[in-house]
């Protein structure tokens, strides 16, 4: 097993840190975006699939 292969490949420790920071940024942004949306807007978007009348509602068993 060539365990230390990356040590010979230059300084790439930034990658681990970069991965963590990017993830933290994306995750924080998604939480922020989710919570700054108004309740009205969220309700409106959440109901989009139900906006259309069900064409066979009256035919349901």
């Amino acid at each position: 097993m060539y365990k230390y292969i990356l040590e010979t490949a230059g300084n790439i420790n930034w990658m681990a840190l970069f991965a963590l920071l990017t993830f933290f940024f994306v995750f924080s942004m998604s939480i922020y975006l989710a919570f700054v949306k108004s309740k009205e807007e969220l309700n409106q978007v959440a109901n989009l699939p139900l906006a259309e009348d069900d064409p066979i509602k009256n035919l349901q068993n």
Partner: protein
Amino acid sequence: MSKVETFSYDNKIVRDFGIATTIWGIVGMVVGLLAALQLIWPEFNITQYFTFGRIRPLHTNAVIFAFVGNGIYMGVYYSLQRLLKARMYSDLLSKIHFWGWQLIILSAALTLPLGITSASEYAELEWPIDIAIALVWIVFGLNMFGTILKRRENHLYVAIWFYIATWITVTVLHVVKNLEIPVSLFDSIPVFAGVQDALIQWWYGHNAVAFFLTTPYLGLMYYFLPKAANRPVYSYKLSIIHFWALIFIYIWAGPHHLLYTSLPDWAQSLGSVFSLMLIAPSWGGMLNGLLTLRGAWDRVRRDPILKFMVVAVTAYGMATLEGPLLSIKSINAISHYTDWTVGHVHVGTLGWNGMLTFGVLYWLWPRLYGTKLFSMKLANTHFWLGTLGTMFYTIPLYWAGWTQSLMWKKFTPDGFLAYGNFLETVTQIIPMYMVRTLGGTIYVVGVFIMAYNLWKTAQAGSIIENVEASAPAREKYVPHKGEHWHRWIERRPIQMLIGSAILVLIGGLVEIFPMIVIDENVPKIESVKPYTALELEGRDLYIKEGCIGCHSQMVRPFRSETERYGEFSKSGEFVYDRPFLWGSKRTGPDLHRVGGKYPHSWHYNHMLEPESMSPGSIMPPYPWMLDQDIDTTYTAAKVKVLRMLNTPYPRGYEERAVSDLQRQARKIAAELNEQGIEQENLENKEIVAMIAYLQRLGTDIKPKQFTEN
């Protein structure tokens, strides 16, 4: 108030994809059943075109790209139009997409049994088909983005975010994975070799699961589950966090397929950590799906569609908990190469993809045909057959996986392998394979019942090809002073989503970058040389016959493996392997150190009739290798391409490649003759090339006295 516009939704294309998913689903699953039977009774390996090695990729491609693929398009084309209040951008593009995809499936169904394969799991199709896939995928993208642009609804529902992320990521995966140089119309050589090819493969393979089998189906879940339950999703906030966290984390997890291999530890650890993190968004999504049914559980008892969806979402939760657990190195040490992985995969495909597809089909069909479902009773029967079939399929495979792994690793008190003969660990699990086949049969019977039910439903109604609808035209957004900056981005949803998708692909790039750096840093082992022309042709036969489906070429650094197979595998040994052939399943033993282990005659007899050398073996016989001549038409071209990719063949070797091949073949034929094998023109036969390759495997770093016999 905007002017109300009237338009129509295209239902015909939805119906066409629905029929395709049903038909290809049956085909793919029946082929899977054949593969399961072959693992119990090798007699089911009928002719060279239907051996397990060729059938397995046919099964996986059929269920992934034909069954699930058409299922995705069916759901996307229905939901996208309604969520955006717009007909698909172009009927012509819809038609090209549909027929193009079916032609691709058909070409896969023809080429894979013929042994035309690139040996990369889930990307086996050769380069002309790869190009066709790219073109049809672009057509799908144009149609989807065109519809988004002409939409009448300002907001993009979260399902559409999942569709867009799917499209962008699959595009990138497909292009990077299939970077290859054609040798002929049906053969190509990948640009990456050995450990790099392995990382690219599983970066692709894992994300094919993530972005073809998961994200588009999550989009379908977010649309069809609220529709079927007639209530909005439990938490839209949670769905936003689910989306971003899931697509970002998924892209990093690929290396968990390569734990304990020659891949650098850094990449392995990255894959493990991100895989564990995946539990959070995956379970967020599962809970969001299940909680959507709060207050409607009484309906779940009565409505088979909701039952299918509940089992699908639960299976998604189970598979996405199990996957991260399998990515923990100590668990992976037990599970990898065993049937545990096969069981895990089928919780996802049978449970999640299958059951959700069936639920959506049952929901859609009456609406497409303007009638009631022919039989709720049959749908309920199908539900129970599907659920029981999944359980009868997966539980025996978990049992088989644990049994076999424990047997591989068991030592006697004296320090010897308790089951030194690999075959003992195979015959032990045959009863589990039988129960698995029963489970698969139950599941397939259910699908046949569904096809009948849908057919009768269609007969009772008539297809409503165009559904009239009306909606106000989209109002132009007027920005106002002091608004939040993120409003600006949300006004441009396509730019935002494309940009975000590219951002999350950083994960893939950061993983691949070290591998490119490694290209210069993989320790070159002086004794590792390129394959000879005959070995190259033998290797291509190994690929053609799909040996990789049952044999790995990666000895992990465990005592139980080095005792059984020999020295563990080093990354420097694979620098000339295009494609890499490490494999991911050991139905048969690892072959990386098989070179020099047996005489040529053993291989000759073993390929002719495996049971003659290994009584009880379930390996298919390959008698045609003794009759068919080695095809040297492209030998020189292969050498030329390999040299272009820095394989250090001597100058002009391509010109004498065929004569060198014949020389080595004559030598092996003469040795076979000395060992008692008599056959006319043996030196021209494929078996000789196969023996040359097998005898070379793993010998480059073996001390010479062990190889010269």
